[in-house]
């Protein structure tokens, strides 16, 4: 078996010295399978200019206080959140480890998400709305053909992402045995597609956040726009999720 995969990345990183002398970073990354799919120099210069403008605003932005209350997530931030908090818990091999949280063990056919949500893992999807998808592949690292897996249908758990390490009720791989360079394969996510039968325009969602804050007697709520990549720990003994917000708006009532 011989597979070929090209990848082209551009990354822009910048930090500004804030008024309180801390350093505030912002990042922007682009990915395409072919360099021709990357933005032009003119587009990159426009992006760099807008990063400078945003950093200039963040320079004097207030430091976030400890907060417990409602928050909403922009699609980019919610992608990281969903990948870390949900996605790693549906990787089959983790359910064989006694030290793992095993959150969804024995939950197949049970309602684990709201009925409006469905989740698919689809390594056969090469791009979506003109965006190349890095989770695309033809065969996994155990030589098993890639396939679309319906993980959650209308809120009900259907199966797990499987490598060739079987579980009690799932005795075959579904093409999700993946490895980082130099390491042996385990079950890992591909492209995760979360769909909903109910969608709300952003303005309405922000309004909903304000209403909820009002109801709870809070002065403001958080709208997370961008975060750094996440880090998860699904063990039953340790911390669950770490990610650093890069850009967050406060929605005042």
């Amino acid at each position, binding site marked *: 078996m011989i597979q070929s995969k090209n990848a*082209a990345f551009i990354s822009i990183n910048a930090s500004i010295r804030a008024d309180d002398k801390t350093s505030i970073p912002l990042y922007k990354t682009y990915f395409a399978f072919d360099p021709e799919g990357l933005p032009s120099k003119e587009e990159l210069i426009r992006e760099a200019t807008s990063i400078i403008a945003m950093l200039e605003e963040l320079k004097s932005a207030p430091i976030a206080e400890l907060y417990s209350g409602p928050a909403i997530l922009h699609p980019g931030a919610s992608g990281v959140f969903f990948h870390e908090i949900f996605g790693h818990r549906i990787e089959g091999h983790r359910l064989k480890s*006694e030290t793992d949280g095993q959150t969804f063990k024995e939950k197949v056919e049970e309602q684990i998400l709201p009925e409006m949500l469905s989740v698919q893992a689809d390594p056969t999807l090469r791009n979506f709305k003109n965006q190349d998808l890095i989770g695309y592949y033809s065969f996994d690292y*155990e030589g098993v053909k890639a396939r679309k897996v319906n993980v959650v249908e209308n809120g009900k758990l259907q199966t797990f992402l499987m490598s060739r390490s079987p579980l009690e009720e799932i005795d075959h791989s579904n093409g999700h045995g993946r490895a980082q360079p130099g390491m042996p394969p385990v079950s890992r996510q591909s492209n995760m597609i979360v769909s909903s039968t109910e969608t709300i325009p952003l303005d309405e969602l922000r309004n909903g956040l304000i209403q909820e804050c009002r109801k709870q007697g809070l002065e403001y709520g958080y709208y997370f726009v961008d975060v750094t990549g996440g880090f998860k720990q699904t063990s039953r003994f340790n911390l669950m999720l770490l990610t650093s917000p890069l850009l967050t708006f406060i929605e005042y009532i």
Partner: protein
Amino acid sequence: MVDEMNREFEVLGKEDPPAYYMDYMVNETRSASFAASLGSLTNSFPNNQRNAIVTIRVGDYKRDHTHKSDDNMYGYGSSYGGSEYLPLDNNEKAIQFAFWKLTKAGYQSAEKTYKKLDFDNDTIETADFSKEISEIYLEKDNNIVAQVDTQYWEDIVIDVSRIFLSNESIIDASVSVNLSADRHFFIQLKVHN
């Protein structure tokens, strides 16, 4: 790769415990990286490397050396003899030697684990490794790095990172480009039991 794998499988399949599954994997990466900070080029180089990994499973599909493994960090199931860089010039002897070393280390590690397992008092019913269809798939090489225009990408990272000089409060700004063309080679041998 194929010759060495056939030879090893023939020998280790007769050992105690027998190897019943083996795969050889090579990841070849050809890449070009460019980076600039605040208008000055900091990095511009091509990089080619080949990395080999061998997986060996001893025992059988139902009960192998991973039977009671509780390690989800480094992989669940495969014996791990480490990885080796391979020569880029297709030197047959050197490649064969690297796979021999990895196979030896992988088998020894799996054998040691297998012999510590107590199968007599075992209650685990789930198999340790699934049987899957063997596929043949040969994808054409489309090496984007072979035609890379170094001057074009150096100009991009320099010119875009220079924009950040316009603001005196910016303390760090970099732009990087990474282009890679990966080839993934995979072969497996197994016993049908």
